[in-house]
């Protein structure tokens, strides 16, 4: 009956992803509105809850334009290439674990496929989307698009490295590449055990999905709308949805890797997918908070940040975790204490060494 299970899960994942993406778009606009002293969209439906629907209907009715001198086929294919990996990520994300949970119990983990190389799969799949962006940037035959695509390549390649290195720390601590086993291994959430790893992963992932302050791809004050400048209608919507689907994906992965996925912290309450969804919203809120507060970094500063700041820090983190693994400290509460203190110390020292531009000269 495997195929039946697969079909059920495909439906669940599609429904989950699309409804959450809609919710994210609305939430983003509402919450950022609150940050900015304005109500946000509140006219369509109760509390503006139908706003994403209205937007979707509008965008579906728009004409789908291909630039006259663009590369027709690449231009049409690009949004699909960019969007599809966002959904593929959810194939290995466990929504609830095996055994009794809140309300009902399962005889196997609630994931489409509990791959034993799940982490590897996620890293691989999530880097496909950059190809879609380059395709879009090239095929549009537009200079802004091309500049945006160039930035995309540089950014993705740079941030993949510290990102993966920070996951390696998790893999060492849990001893498995399967996402379900990683969740099961978190009797102490890994955010406490590896705060440095969390920081690196979160920053790297923020950059990888092009959210502020690393949203150079969509720096509308610089390069208009970057690689999707020339897109309209449903194809634009696919890029747009893709971005939010990636935000959802990253929120889900952070919840799984660092926040203990479907488990309630310290096992105080039985496991449930509800905790998992709550954690997703928590991580997404963190991203919104950053986005509505910070200005954007410049391209060279962003690259420097990846290679000179995050990469050494992630190596230090890896060394730390590995050393604890082989020593007698292990991955218990002693390691939590050591790592939290060390993480704060490293970040403070390292940040002070990194370009600290001082000086108020106006008087």
């Amino acid at each position, binding site marked *: 009956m495997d195929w039946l299970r697969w079909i059920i899960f495909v439906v669940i994942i599609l429904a989950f992803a699309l409804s959450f993406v809609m919710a994210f778009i609305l939430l983003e606009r509402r919450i950022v509105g609150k940050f900015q002293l304005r109500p946000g969209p509140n006219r369509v439906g109760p509390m503006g809850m139908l706003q994403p629907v209205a937007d979707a209907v509008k965008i579906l009715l728009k004409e789908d334009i291909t630039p006259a001198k663009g590369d027709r086929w690449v231009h049409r294919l690009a949004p699909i290439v960019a969007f599809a990996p966002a959904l593929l990520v959810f194939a290995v994300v466990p929504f609830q674990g095996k055994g009794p949970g809140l309300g009902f119990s399962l005889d196997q983990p609630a994931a489409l496929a509990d791959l034993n190389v799940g982490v590897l799969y996620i890293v691989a799949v999530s880097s496909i989307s950059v190809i879609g962006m380059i395709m879009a940037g090239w095929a549009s035959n537009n200079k802004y698009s*091309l500049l945006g695509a160039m930035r995309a390549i540089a950014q993705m390649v740079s941030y993949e490295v510290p990102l993966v290195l920070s996951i390696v720390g998790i893999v060492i601590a849990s001893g498995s590449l399967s996402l379900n086993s990683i969740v099961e291994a978190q009797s102490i959430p890994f955010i406490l055990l590896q705060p440095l790893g969390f920081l690196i992963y979160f920053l790297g992932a923020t950059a990888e999905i092009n959210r502020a302050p690393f949203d150079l791809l969509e720096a509308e004050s610089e390069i208009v709308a970057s690689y999707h400048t020339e897109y309209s209608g449903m194809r634009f919507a696919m890029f747009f949805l893709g971005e939010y689907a990636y935000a959802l994906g990253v929120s889900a992965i952070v919840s799984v890797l660092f926040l203990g996925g479907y488990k309630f912290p310290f096992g105080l309450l039985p496991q449930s997918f509800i905790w998992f969804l709550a954690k997703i919203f928590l991580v997404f809120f963190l991203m919104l908070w950053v986005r509505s507060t*910070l*200005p954007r*970094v410049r391209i060279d500063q962003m690259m420097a940040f990846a290679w000179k700041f995050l990469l050494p820090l992630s190596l230090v983190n890896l060394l730390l975790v590995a050393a604890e693994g082989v020593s007698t400290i292990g991955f218990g509460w002693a390691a939590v204490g050591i790592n939290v203190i060390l993480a704060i110390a490293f970040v403070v020292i390292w940040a002070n060494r990194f370009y600290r531009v001082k000086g108020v000269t106006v*008087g």
Partner: protein
Amino acid sequence: MALRTEPIVVNMGPQHPATHGVFRMRVTLDGEVITDLEPVMGYLHRGVEKLAEARTYTQFIPLTDRMDYLSSMSNNLAYVLAVEKLAGVEAPPRAQYLRVIMAEMMRISNHLMAVGTFLDDMGAFHTPLLYMFREREKLLDLFEMVCGQRLTYNYMRIGGLSHDIPPEFLPALKKFVRDMPGFVDEYDQLIRENEIVLARTRGVGVLPRALAINASASGPVLRGSGVKWDLRKTDPYLVYDKLEFDVPTGAVGDIYDRYRVRIEEMRQSVRILEQAIERLPPGEVRSDVPHLVHPPRGEVYGHIEAPKGELGFYLVSDTGIAPYRCHIRPPSLINLTALRDMVLGMKIADAIITLGSIDIVLGEVDR
């Protein structure tokens, strides 16, 4: 084999989301580095100077509103001061103090907008801008109280003001003056030590002192480069010589200094407002000047320290009811001429925020 490379030319504007109004920068890029920049302007040219010749002196006042539409009061003021100089009339003391109050309110409002949009250019996703709008809104309400308009005020007249302030204006202004320093501190605290802001703005878009003087830059752009030049001090008009305030200057002339100068100027403007409210004398707000002014034959150059810099009106009279010739020295345009030198060799993103830090309004650049 060496790869063949070629620079790309990108048009920033006139429909680009970042340019302030319909301004176009033809930027030549080597990757992300700017190798050449050519400003193209004139998309908003309306021939204001020529229109002046076909209107009476008073009829031209509303048109000055539409030049730098973010500081209309200052435009009014610069123009009526020039005409008064030409015709040899003077406004009564109450009008002079009220003009100072209006000009300084306008300066705060303009700087709020300038800093807000500048941070917006830096990619701060509208949050600072909307915080600034919160205060600007209060100022616009005050202006509305005085003259019924929120953007184009048309409040100054030759020889005074169009009418006196309503009784509810002063208490509202006092409340604003009381609250404003706290808000300025709040904004400053959020931005001043922000690591990203510092990294983006320190040493970027530098306008050296000598170049600033040679380009005849003025306003915060000049003072950011360390030149202590403020027409309110160097060539006092109205009652500025009786008021106490400091002229903040920068040291390096980079974007950050310009930003800091604007923030400090807001504080100083609040100081001026406090003193002006205290000393506001009773009396007439308009001296006895006929509707159709016939200034004696001659020419005159009147200038004030507008929020963006030196705003000057050069008027020639042939004793008629309209100026024979009117020429305007817009601060935005003159400051903009130094843009190319500021951004050569920088990244695209730097060019955008440098443009933002100059604080231009295209209505004034193109006139």
